[in-house]
């Protein structure tokens, strides 16, 4: 349970971090942010990076701000920053509700929002939030910056569109309207454990009807995803238990769940139905 040797780099600016990463990435160099997923993986020797670029001393990337209708989250913002609302309004309320499910208190002091996205564990709460809310992910390399929509970013189990020489420097979450409602469900076997199924339901209520519904599922398939079958049933309908049940059943029927030691596919399929229903019912409470 001891990590193998690596060369340690400690840049003080994003530019320096990106330059170092560009030099060491071909030689199995990686960014070290909170380290709450990477370091255990190294302890297991499942990851043996030859270089670590520690960004914990990089200046100016540890704040949350509002930028052009988005909540902008820098790459050193820890999970704990979201335990209480960072902003007024629905998204300010949504993030603490989700954050509470992330691992445990000490882990939330170190782990970062952006690090979770870069790691892309299928059971990551923040990856689910990013996908459901159509986040924009900022990737920087020595060549420049590119913006990638969350939907294009997550490519599979711990696999993303980030190139090895790119650093995930921030994520932007669209602010939610006052008329938007949300519900969040997570089932895990112990407090703080990986979610076997997570559901984030968001929609706008306009004239008594559901507009722009987003049903995000996490921990079910190899990456977080929106569920079109459920969203089609919800769109244009008035919120009611019958509509919610129909959406939950449609979601459950349309997923292709992972199987692992904790749960067969049929179990996760059942959790999707229970979770979508629970998340939707929260929107009318």
């Amino acid at each position, binding site marked *: *349970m*001891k*990590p*193998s*040797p*690596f*060369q*340690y780099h400690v840049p003080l600016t994003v530019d320096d971090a990106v330059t170092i990463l560009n030099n060491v990435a071909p030689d199995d160099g990686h960014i070290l942010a909170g*380290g*709450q997923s990477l*370091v*255990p993986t*190294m*302890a*297991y020797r499942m990851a043996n990076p*030859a270089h*670590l670029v*520690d960004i*914990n001393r990089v200046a100016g990337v540890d704040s949350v701000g509002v930028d052009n209708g988005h909540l902008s989250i820098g790459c050193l913002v820890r999970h704990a920053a979201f335990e209480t609302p960072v902003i007024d309004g629905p998204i300010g309320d949504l993030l603490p509700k989700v954050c*509470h499910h992330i691992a*445990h*208190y*000490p*882990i939330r*002091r*170190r782990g970062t929002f952006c690090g979770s996205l870069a790691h892309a564990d299928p059971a990551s709460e923040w990856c689910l939030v990013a996908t459901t809310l159509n986040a924009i992910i900022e990737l920087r390399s020595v060549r420049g910056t590119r913006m990638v929509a969350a939907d294009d970013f997550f490519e599979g189990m711990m696999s993303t569109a980030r190139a090895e020489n790119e650093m995930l420097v921030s994520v932007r979450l669209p602010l939610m309207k006052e008329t938007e409602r949300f519900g969040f469900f997570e089932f895990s076997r*112990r*407090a*703080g454990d990986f979610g076997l199924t997570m559901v984030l339901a968001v929609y706008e209520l306009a004239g008594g009807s559901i507009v722009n519904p987003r049903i995000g599922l996490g921990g079910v398939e190899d990456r977080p995803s929106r569920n079109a079958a459920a969203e089609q049933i919800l769109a244009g309908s008035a919120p009611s238990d019958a509509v919610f049940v129909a959406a939950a059943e449609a979601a459950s029927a349309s997923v292709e769940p992972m199987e692992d030691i904790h749960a067969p596919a049929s179990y996760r399929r059942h959790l999707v139905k229970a979770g979508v229903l629970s998340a939707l019912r929260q929107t009318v409470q």
Partner: protein
Amino acid sequence: MSESLVDISLTINETEYRVSVEPRYTLADVIRHQCGLTGTHLGCEHGVCGTCNVLVDGEPVRACLMFAIQAQGAKIRTVEGLSQGDTLHALQQAFMDHHALQCGFCTPGFLMLLTGALETNPDLTDAELRDVLSSNLCRCTGYQNIILAARAGADRMKQLTSPMPETATLRPADA
């Protein structure tokens, strides 16, 4: 790959330790093996059990998930720094009073977890305390006595730091 040693300085319980480390050495291993502070225990070594919790700049963190080289310049506190001479910290006393340990292996991790959480928020509710305690594993107690001790220790910590002097006389220290 390099196995060359780097000279660093760590400030633990207000004492400076100069040590030579490989970058891969965890903070937990360096605290134990090179600084000789063996009160910090290691259980799982991958962030699950919480036995190695220490305070880094006031925050409880898993010392097995941080490299010692990252902790330069930080104020580190370990279980050795809790008591004042022969006077136990309020949480240590509460753990004794409520029989919140059997073998004691997990206790330093629980104490540092609670110290950090309660110094940050002295008003944690019972539910919030339980949530904080879910961070750590104990294989002896079944947790109920740890929950009782955490509540009693939290109340005592608040009493000791209360601005109203008369409250200190309302309850004896060792109930």
